[in-house]
């Protein structure tokens, strides 16, 4: 997704330089950036909640063996 954004931004940049960047394109751009950011945030949140569950009983039993 980052590669897509980079590509689009380079396109906007060239159009801005040529004076051909349009308002409808920029409205779409804001919507695209917003959706991409929210997707990235959601993915990061899901990654964070799928951590390995610690088995505390097993950990304690390992201590008892010391």
């Amino acid at each position, binding site marked *: 997704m*980052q590669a897509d*954004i*980079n590509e689009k*931004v380079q396109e*906007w*940049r060239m159009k*801005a*330089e040529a004076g051909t*960047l349009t*308002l409808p394109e*920029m*409205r779409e*751009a*804001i919507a695209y*950036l*917003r959706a*991409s*950011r929210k997707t*990235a*945030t959601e993915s*990061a949140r899901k990654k964070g909640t799928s951590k390995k569950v610690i088995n505390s009983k097993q950990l304690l039993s390992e201590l008892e063996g010391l």
Partner: protein
Amino acid sequence: MREQGIITQEMREELGITPRFPEVIDSSMLSAFRACPYKAYLNYFEHWHPKFESVHLVAGGAFAKGVEIARKAFYEDGNSPETSEALGLQALIADYGLFECPPDSAKSLERMCGALEFYLCQYPLGDDGAEPITLPSGRRGIEFSFAEMLEKVHPVTGNPLLFSGRADMIAEFAGGIYNFDEKTTTQLGQKWGLQWDLRSQFTSYCWAGRRCGVPMQGTIIRGISILKTKYDTQQAITYRADWELDRWEEMLYLDLTRMLEMWEIATYNQNLDGSCVRAGNPWDRNTDSACNDYGGCQFRQVCKAKNPYSILQTNFSRRVWDPLQHREVPIEEWEANLALEAKEVK
């Protein structure tokens, strides 16, 4: 007597450099002078600036432009939030231009576009609690510029010196009037908000507001951190009481007196067209922390060189920042304009 490591009149004449005392003082110049008068002299009297643009300045400037245009589109032109955001993004992209971001910096054009979208989502136009004030001229308090006449005069022209500044936004918020300032950064955190309580820049805005009949309670600073994979934001409020504004003004005049005294020390001739001839360089240097603050003073190598101009000519170019017009011009254009003005006066 020191003869090496300083700029001499012979060196200046050889390169055709004429230092000029500025007509307009601003917060950046004051800050530089307080940190190191020599730095202020090189930056603002001889107008040396690094040849290569700083990513922080380019990115920060583009972001500010985007926010300014979005606000003006919404509050002054009555556009919808969606259209205003789009216009802001268009302005950011145009302002960033073709600048090549260093590979290790998070402030690429892509990330700055994302930062603007994030900011306008966190602080929605028309729905963030801040309503730009309406000035007597009918304009809104967006990118509000001021230039206040001081009681010190220019040492050559005799014109009153001016103190100028430009506030991002002056708005009503929670029953009071505040200056709003956006700061892009790579790091926020617990201590981020504490650094603004004595910031001279914000005191100067409240001081100018008091003089203009727009009394402000203080400044609300919105920090936006831009990292390679995420954004974050923090708001801080810093207040200014009347006695702090009075103290700021007193310090301003003390610093101006010192600046003028340094200017005068080796002046033995004065021409009415604003040039000055000096025998040496009395400007003090701060060879302490100011050299290392904020990633290092841009003139560190200059202070290490036996012949400062050898480094200045290689790594710097001369450009003049006009705080009233809020733009940078090459030294040649600026001096040509000065010569034209001098002719018109005669």
